[in-house]
């Protein structure tokens, strides 16, 4: 019975602490921004990211026709703002930016994988990577094309 209580307490504790620290998905004192090497770190990360995105057959076709320099700049701005850095994202909102693109969930996952490769290459610790991904992942709702409207103009 003791074991059971410990187990329940653990599970509840995990739920509570995760709930309470949900604010952790909001940037705190720019710690995440610092972990990513601030502005120079983000610029280097996005340079690496774009090279990999273009090289990956799953993501390349989506980024080839884009203004890559501008996409990189906007990503730097966006990640900087999200991670608590001194930036304001001034680009288009995610929904309208992706409205005319037909993006599948598997392609969104591919993009996450490529970003993980870039973050690995830049030596960003796994837990910090996940903190950043937790801020970015909800954008899937605006980026992925819903199945019912896929293929339509």
């Amino acid at each position, binding site marked *: 019975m003791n*074991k*059971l209580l410990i*187990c*329940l307490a*653990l*599970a509840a504790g*995990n*739920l509570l602490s*995760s*709930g309470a*620290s*949900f604010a*952790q*998905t909001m940037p705190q004192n720019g710690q995440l921004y610092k972990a990513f090497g601030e502005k120079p770190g983000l610029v280097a990360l996005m340079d690496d990211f774009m090279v990999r995105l273009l090289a990956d057959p*799953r993501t390349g076709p989506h980024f080839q026709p884009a203004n890559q320099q501008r996409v990189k700049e906007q990503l730097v701005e966006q990640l900087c703002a999200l991670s608590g850095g001194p930036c304001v994202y001034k680009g288009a909102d995610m929904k309208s930016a992706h409205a005319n693109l037909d993006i*599948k*969930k*598997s*392609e*969104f*996952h*591919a993009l*996450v*994988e490529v970003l*993980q490769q870039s973050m*690995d290459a830049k030596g960003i610790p*796994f*837990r910090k990577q*996940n*903190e950043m*991904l*937790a*801020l970015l*992942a*909800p954008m*899937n709702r605006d980026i*992925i094309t819903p*199945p019912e409207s*896929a293929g339509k103009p």
Partner: protein
Amino acid sequence: MTPPLLPLLTILLLITTAAQAETGKLLLTGGVSSIEGSAGGGLTPWAVIGSNATAGETGGSAYLTHVGTRDYGLNIYGAAVGINDRYELSIARQDFNTRDTGVALGLPGLHLKQTIVGAKVRVLGDAVLDSDTLVPQVAVGVQYKSLGSTGLDGTLTALGAKRSGVDVYVSATKLFLGQSLLVNGTLRATKANQNGLLGYGATLGGNENRYSLQPEFSVAWLLSKNVAVGAEYRFMRNKLESAGRAAGLGNGLRSEDWKDIFIAWAPTKNLSLTLAYVDLGVIVPATTGSRKQTGYYLSAQVAF
């Protein structure tokens, strides 16, 4: 046992077909194959849909598991198909080697063989990507379990246990991505004794034969992209004990909760290996000196 072969073959065929196509789930987010075939942790199903298939895709997985405890061995193989990251069909074959217990029962070489056909539907949420809300991924599932005929049939009948049963469960899975922590809770309605290996229900001695609700919990901490460690706790129905008592066996058929601590490793996108230390409590303590069935669990899964 010819009937289970058909669904197994169907599933293998579907897997082969699915393997032709590219599938794009994130690493380990399809879970591993649980002992009953459903995607999840080792001992309990999760709300995730098995295989590497995400929205708009079909994928499959197959697995082999071996559990060795102090007095028993359990070999499992099975397969699952995931469709559109919403539907999951699975099948598992469990072969439980009773070893000295079989000998003590006058049934040397007794193997209890259980077939489990499962279906699961994700009803809401995305366990991985919905990282800005507390809403988990939720799925409901059903498992049809049938125990092959053995020399134990007469004993099970005498205890009022049937040789087939249906479990229904609801699972909620949430990945707290910012914390690299996955939590799952499952609530199962079941009549199974020792997960069905000792039949379903136990009416001897006037036992009520209703379903009981058993909770199951898993926590997993992601150490890296392809390694997770965690623990599980699965409450077990213990109705066979009173049937056993009515049969003059004292607490010789008692069962206890199952638990494990595990490490799962995905060396590639298509392969995962899970190693666990399990504690299945007592299993037929009458013939095993009431020893806790602790031991190891080793599982390999391929997924597309």
